[in-house]
């Protein structure tokens, strides 16, 4: 109990209490998430698993502030996300969350550097500072020699590294990766997972969404979802 108190005071980033997400499809109501309560702490390395339809994408969208829950409470660093306007959500996404997607989601016509700079533009950071920060982020993912390449001139693994650099550049509170190895071959996927490991060791908080056991096993904590409920939340003992 004392342990939990301490964590609340300093280290809790995300606090989710009894959230539900209900979509209306025609006349039918779909309960994507029924009732989920969850805390995520600083420097957590968390994998959210579950078969398709289990609600993991919806949960990820809510955690990533791309979507808001229908019911329940979501506190991000003690700020109530469920009450926020679209603009506030955009601000949180910009400053606090770094996304890594399965399909990389880079701007096809922009160079690696421009892609990494994108969140900084919306943060209103000046060009010279932006360039410096983006260069550093690309260096951190080992791509300092691919700064001016466009996505179609890069391999899949390199593209995902650019995406990771973009996620890191604002020094967010959490990195949210949705099937980050889904479009990569095994070897490249492994490289990306090793990169996440390093980031975690450097103090970052990482949330992985995946349906692959091998990927989830990199995480320190695994949450399994089924039918919009948490089936299991445990420390990963395999490591």
């Amino acid at each position, binding site marked *: 109990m004392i342990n939990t108190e301490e964590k609340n005071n300093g280290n809790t980033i995300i606090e989710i209490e009894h959230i539900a997400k209900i979509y209306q499809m025609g006349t039918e109501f779909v309960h994507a998430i029924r009732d989920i309560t969850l805390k995520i702490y600083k420097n957590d390395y968390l994998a959210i698993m579950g078969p398709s339809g289990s609600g993991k994408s919806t949960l990820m969208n809510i955690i990533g502030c791309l979507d808001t829950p229908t019911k329940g409470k979501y506190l991000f660093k003690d700020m109530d996300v469920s009450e926020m306007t679209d603009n506030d959500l955009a601000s949180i996404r*910009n400053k606090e969350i770094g996304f890594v997607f399965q399909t990389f989601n880079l701007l096809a016509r922009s160079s690696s550097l421009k892609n990494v700079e994108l969140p900084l533009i919306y943060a209103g950071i000046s060009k010279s500072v932006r360039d410096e920060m983006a260069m550093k982020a690309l260096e951190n993912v080992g791509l300092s020699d691919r700064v001016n390449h466009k996505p179609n001139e890069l391999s899949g693994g390199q593209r995902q590294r650019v995406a990771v650099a973009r996620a890191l550049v604002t020094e967010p509170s959490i990195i949210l990766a949705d099937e980050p190895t889904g479009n990569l071959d095994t070897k490249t996927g492994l490289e990306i997972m090793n990169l996440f490991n390093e980031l975690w060791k450097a103090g970052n908080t990482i949330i992985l969404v995946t349906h692959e056991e091998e990927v989830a096993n990199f995480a320190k904590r695994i949450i399994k979802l089924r039918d919009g409920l948490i089936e299991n939340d445990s420390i990963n003992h395999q490591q």
Partner: protein
Amino acid sequence: MKFSEITENIKIAFEAMRVNKLRSLLASLGVVIGISFVILMGWVLSGLDQALEDTFNIIGTDMLYIDKWDWAGGRNWKKIRQRKDITYDQATEFCEKIKNAELAIPNAREFGYKIKYKNEEFQGMSFIGTRWEHSMTPAGSTYIGRHFTQFEDDIGSNVIVLGYKVHQALLNEGDPLGQYVKIEGRKFLVIGVIKKQGTMLFDFVDNQCFMPIKAFQSVFGRSGRSVSVAIKAGSINSLDEVRAESEGLMRQIRNIKPGEENDFSINETKAFESTVEVLRLSVWSVGIGMTVLSFLVGIIGIMNIMFVSVTERTKEIGIRKAVGAKKRTIWMQFIIEAAILSFIGAVIAFIGCSVFVYLIATLLPKFVPETAFLSPILPYELLLIASFVSIFVGMLAGLVPAVRAANLDPVEALRREN
């Protein structure tokens, strides 16, 4: 709104247009046409203004012309025709008695006679018998030779000052001075040529030839026409005073009883303003109709292409929103893109019109001399107007697509496969 967002949005807009050059060009075509109308209309109107000003300068803004005829009186034409002629004696008496005017001179005019030089003839000009003081009015300045002197005036010498066009038609080779021309069988010595003054509104002035009024009377007879009086007030400020004195004096000379209408007109440059106003209005009404129509087409064109652009870039919008772009940032991105698209249309129109206007203004007057009032250079105010109008039109056209883009749900947008 942060400055970096605005510059970023401008860059995005140019990038988007660079990728779709032809499509952007076609989309802005309506604006190109609309802005062209605005520019050409402004150009013609400013030409008209210039022509009006030139006309004023020939007539003289401080000049009054007492005449049987009224310059602006088209409607009362029948009534005016029944006025008694102003005789030479009345005109002379007036000129002697007027006090406040700087100068007053009688002008007698005849049309329909020929002028001969050697074996060549010219017709369609008018002969004006006037006094030597005519050289002191704006219409009397010569570019070759001189006007006639007081002495020549007093004795009624057979000397003539040719109008510009008459000179061009008859004596354009060699020195015209010292040559003799024949009018009604009488020889006249050419002593000068009047400066070219004609404008579209007032082109007959270049066909006028001036001679001493006594010489004029010996050729065309002393009576049988109405003589007009040209009065130079001296300044625009004294115009009212001179006009009032002239009216009273002329009424007295013509024996008009109190309460009766004037049987003469006092003409001045103001009469031309109404003529120009009619012209200006007709240019406007035709121009505005076409302009509004083409802007409507322009707005639809840009709006359509912006909708396509939003649909094509849904994924991009999703990515931008995911990394923190706010609604108004996305909104602005598309508004700016539409505005720039439209502005580029305006630039194309301005360049196109500049070339067109230059060619027209330099070539057309060679075939249609009346169009000489058109300037080969577009007034720079038109560039400003075109810029503002096009940006406004672009923003208007981009409004609905931009709102649609801004309101896209990021989750939905990211799911798109483009």
